[in-house]
C-alpha cells in the first residue's frame, strides 16, 4: 500500500512530536505524578537542553569542518552550519558521536539545573514551590531571548544536522525513529524506576511526607535525586527537539508549549501511570498536529486566528478533565501486594520442611 505523500509527512511529524513530548511528560510524571513535586517550570530544563544543542555541536564542529575562523558563529550562522552539514554528510561516525555528545552534555546540564531547582524544592510548600519554579523558567526564557551570544537571541541559530548523511527524503522519518527509540528507552527506564523499591518510596513521600519520614526515609535526598533525574530527562527532550527542527529559536520555548501542555497531557492520561501519560501525549500531540496541518482548511471556517484554537483547546480540555475526571483516563493502579493466602501457605510450607 502506498500512502500519499501528505499522510506520510503528517504521520512522521505526529510520531516525532509524540516522542518529544513523551520524553518531557515522563519526566513531569516522575516529578509530579509519583513524587508530588509540582513542577511549573518544566520549561527550564527543556529550554536548557535546546540551548545546549544550539550552542555546543556547531561550535565544536567549526574546527573539524575547516570553517573560516574569521566568521562569527551567530552572524554568519547559516553559512557555517551549511558547511558543517556538508562535512557531516560525509562522516556518519562523527555525526553520530556528535549526537551522543550533545545528548550527554544536555543530560549533564539538565541534571545540574535539577540540582539547583531542588534547593527550593526541598524547602518550600507546594504553592510557593510552583511559583518559584515558574519564575526560574521565566528567567531562562529571558536569557535565551536577550543574550545573543548563546543562541542568537530571538533570531535563533541553526543546529548542525547529525543525520545529514541520511538521504533527504528519509531524514525526517529517520529522525522520528531516533526520537521514538530514545523515548522508548526513557519509558522503560522510568517504568523500572517506579517499580523498584525507590518507586514505592516516591509514592510514600507523595502521599504522606510525615509517614515516610517516620519510617526513616530521607525525604530531602529522595526529592533531590528525583529532580536531578527528571531534569536530565527533560533536557534530553529539549535537545532532541532542537536537533529535530534543526534550529533553536528562543521564541518556541515558552511556558505554554513546554510547561502547560505537558501538564495537560499528564493530567489527561493519568498521573502516576506511564501508560496513561503515553495515551494522553498521543491524543494531544495528534490533535495539535492535525490543527497545524489543516490550518488552511480551518482558517476560513473559524472567525479567529487558528493559533488561539490551541489555547482554547488547552484551557477547555484542562477544565473538563479537572471537573469530570481528575484522575485521568487511565488512573493510577493500586500497588499489588502479595496474596496473603499464598504468603501464609509458603511460610507454613517452609516451617514444615
Amino acid at each position, binding site marked *: 500500500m502506498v500512502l500519499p505523500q501528505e499522510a506520510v509527512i503528517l504521520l512522521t511529524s505526529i510520531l516525532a512530536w509524540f516522542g518529544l513530548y513523551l520524553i518531557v511528560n515522563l519526566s513531569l510524571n516522575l516529578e*509530579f505524578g509519583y513524587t508530588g513535586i*509540582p513542577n*511549573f517550570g518544566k520549561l527550564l530544563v527543556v529550554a536548557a537542553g535546546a540551548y545546549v544543542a544550539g550552542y555546543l555541536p556547531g561550535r565544536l564542529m567549526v574546527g573539524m569542518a575547516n570553517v573560516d575562523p574569521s566568521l562569527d558563529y551567530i552572524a554568519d550562522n547559516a553559512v557555517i552550519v551549511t558547511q558543517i552539514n556538508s562535512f557531516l554528510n560525509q562522516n556518519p561516525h562523527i555525526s553520530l558521536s556528535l549526537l551522543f555528545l550533545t545528548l550527554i552534555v544536555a543530560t549533564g546540564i539538565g541534571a545540574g539545573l535539577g540540582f539547583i531547582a531542588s534547593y*527550593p524544592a526541598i*524547602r*518550600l510548600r*507546594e*504553592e*510557593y514551590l*510552583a*511559583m*518559584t519554579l*515558574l*519564575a*526560574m523558567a*521565566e*528567567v531562562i526564557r*529571558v*536569557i535565551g*531571548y*536577550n543574550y545573543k551570544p548563546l543562541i542568537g537571541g530571538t533570531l535563533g541559530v541553526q543546529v548542525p544536522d547529525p543525520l545529514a548523511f541520511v538521504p533527504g527524503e528519509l531524514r525526517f522519518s529517520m529522525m522520528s525513529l531516533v526520537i521514538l527509540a530514545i523515548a522508548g528507552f526513557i519509558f522503560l527506564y522510568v517504568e523500572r524506576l517506579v517499580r523498584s523499591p525507590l518507586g514505592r518510596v516516591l509514592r510514600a513521600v507523595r502521599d504522606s511526607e510525615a509517614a515516610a519520614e517516620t519510617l526513616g526515609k530521607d525525604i530531602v535526598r529522595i526529592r533531590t535525586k528525583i529532580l536531578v533525574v527528571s531534569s536530565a530527562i527533560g533536557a534530553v527532550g529539549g535537545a532532541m527537539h532542537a536537533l529535530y527542527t534543526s534550529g533553536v529559536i528562543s521564541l518556541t520555548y515558552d511556558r*505554554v508549549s513546554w510547561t*502547560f501542555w505537558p*501538564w495537560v497531557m499528564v*493530567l489527561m492520561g493519568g498521573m502516576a501511570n506511564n501508560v496513561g501519560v503515553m495515551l494522553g501525549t498521543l491524543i494531544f500531540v495528534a490533535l495539535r498536529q492535525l490543527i497545524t496541518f489543516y490550518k488552511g482548511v480551518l482558517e476560513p471556517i473559524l*472567525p*479567529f*486566528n487558528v*493559533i*488561539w484554537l490551541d*489555547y*482554547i483547546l*488547552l*484551557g*477547555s480540555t*484542562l*477544565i473538563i478533565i*479537572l*471537573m469530570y475526571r*481528575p484522575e485521568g483516563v487511565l488512573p493510577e493502579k493500586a500497588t499489588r501486594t502479595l496474596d496473603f493466602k499464598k504468603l501464609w501457605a509458603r511460610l507454613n510450607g517452609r516451617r514444615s520442611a
Partner: protein
Amino acid sequence: MVLVFPPIFREAIIFSSLLTLLSIGLTLTYMTTRVPNFAHGSFATVGAYISLVAVRLMSVSPYLFLPIAFLVSGFVALLLYRAVLRPLMRRGASTILLMVATIAFDMLLIAALNIFADYLSRTYKITSRYFSLKAADIRVEGIPMVFYVAPLIAVGLILTLYLLLTKTKFGVAMRAAIENPSLAGVVGINIDLVYTISWILAGGLAGIAGLLMSLWFIGNPDLGTLILVSIFSASIVGGLLNIYGAILGGFLVGFAEVIVTSRLASVLGVWVVPFRPVIPLLIMVIALLTIPGGLSSIRWSSIAKLWRR
C-alpha cells in the same frame, strides 16, 4: 507647587502603585480561598483593553472608564471563581489542581483577549497590539496625570479596603471567614458570599490597575503574563496572607525593579534592561529562603527590643 521628580522615579511610583493594587488582589483571593491565582495578571490586561476601547472607539478620557474596568474585570474574576474554582473545591480538588485550573482559565482569557484584539484591528482599523495610550492622558503642567492618579487611587483604594475590613459589619465577617471558616459558618456568616466578593474585589482592583497601566506602559494581550512574576514576588514578599504585607511588597518589588534596572543600565550599559524580570525572581527567592512568612511575619517589636539592648 509642582514637585519635580526625575522620570525614572516617576516610573517607579506608577509601577509600584499599580503592582500594589495587583498584589493586594492576589493576596485577598489567596487568603480567602487558598488558590494562587495564575490568571490574575490577565485580569489587568482586560482593564488595559477597556482603556483602549474608551480612547480609540469612544474617544473619551480613560479615567471615566475606571468603574467599567472594575466591573468587567470583577465579572471575569467572578466567572473564574463561580464557574471553575467553586465546583472544583466542592469536589475536593487539591491546591495544585486548583492552580492548574486557574492556568487553564488564563489560557482561555488570553485567547479571548487576542481574538478581541484581532477583532478590533480588523473591524475598526486601530492598533490593538503593542499599543501606547500615553498621548491620550491629560497633562498637568507637562506631567501625565497618571503619575498623580495611580498613587492616589492606590492609596484611596487601600484606605477604603481598610475601612471596609475594620469598620463595617461585612468586613468583620470577612476577616472572621478568613481566620476560621468553619467557626464563622457556625455563627451564621455566609462564607460563600464572602469568598465571592473577595474574588470580585480582586478582579476589580486588577482591572483598575490594568487600565491605569495602559496609560504609561505598552499594552498587549500578554501584558498580564509578563507582570505575573512581579505580582507573585510582591505578594510573597508581603507574606501572601496579609493585605498590608502586599502593600509593602508591591512598593518594594516595584521600586527595586525600576530603580535597580536603571542604575545597573547606567553602570553596565543598556543591555541589562531586558533582564529586568530576574529582579523579582531574586527578591522572591531571597524572601522565601530568609523570611518564608514574608515581611508581615516579622515581629518588629522584638527586633526593636533587640535594638534597645
